[in-house]
């Protein structure tokens, strides 16, 4: 994770377009100013950032489904549950699957796992829109390369 850039995902492990699901992974940094406040003497990965990790993972799935032609934006989070703590240095797996591909929106079910045990999960709604400008699309492609997003047809696609 590069928290200072709000990049919650380190690597895309697999995108399966046939089953419309994705797996990513991320390691919580051992140090961050965030942990100085959340919480002093008891550093925890904030739940809102775990939601963001699920949203970003869902987003990469939607980017793949839309062949980088359109951009997903977070619109709603439902039924979010946090089952255990995530602490600095831990490596988590993030999974998302497409529940519904609507007109201009999509719904995913996502989860964060630690050692194959569910840490948190939620239902996420994303608006699917045209890229607002070319700069954003280019920057997204750069980020995509950083997290291992294939510009070719993804695996299992």
């Amino acid at each position: 994770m590069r928290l200072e850039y709000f990049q919650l995902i380190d690597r895309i492990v697999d995108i399966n377009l046939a089953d419309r699901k994705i797996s990513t992974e991320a390691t919580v940094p051992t140090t961050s100013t965030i942990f100085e406040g959340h919480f002093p003497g008891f550093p925890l990965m904030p739940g809102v950032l775990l939601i963001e990790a699920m949203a970003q993972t869902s987003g990469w799935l939607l980017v793949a489904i839309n062949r980088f032609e359109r951009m997903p934006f977070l619109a709603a989070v439902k039924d979010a549950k946090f089952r255990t703590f995530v602490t600095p240095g831990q490596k988590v797996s993030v999974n998302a699957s497409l529940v519904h591909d609507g007109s201009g929106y999509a719904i995913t079910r996502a989860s964060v796992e630690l050692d194959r045990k569910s840490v948190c999960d939620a239902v996420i709604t994303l608006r699917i829109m045209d890229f607002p400008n070319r700069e954003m699309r280019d920057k997204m492609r750069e980020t995509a390369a950083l997290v291992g997003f294939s510009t070719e047809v993804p695996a299992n696609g």
Partner: protein
Amino acid sequence: MSSTFDTIANIIAETCDIPRDSIKPESHAINDLGIDSLDFLDIAFAIDKAFGIKLPLEQWTQEVNDGKATTDQYFVLKNLSARIDELVAAKGA
């Protein structure tokens, strides 16, 4: 078997916590019932699931923005019901 209108009225009542009795065929989802675009996504999702269709929200929005259609044509519930019936019929054709 309930009518298309009854189905979407029930969906709206449940999704947006609007009294079912206040939802009429003449109601405009946005202007009369106060449903915003985000809440309408929930409604669209429920309608898509209930009828096995994909409401073409983006196409409708574009038509309204281009002045080719009015919001009444798609968001007055009796008209929305008719559009859904058309989509269901087209799916079965």
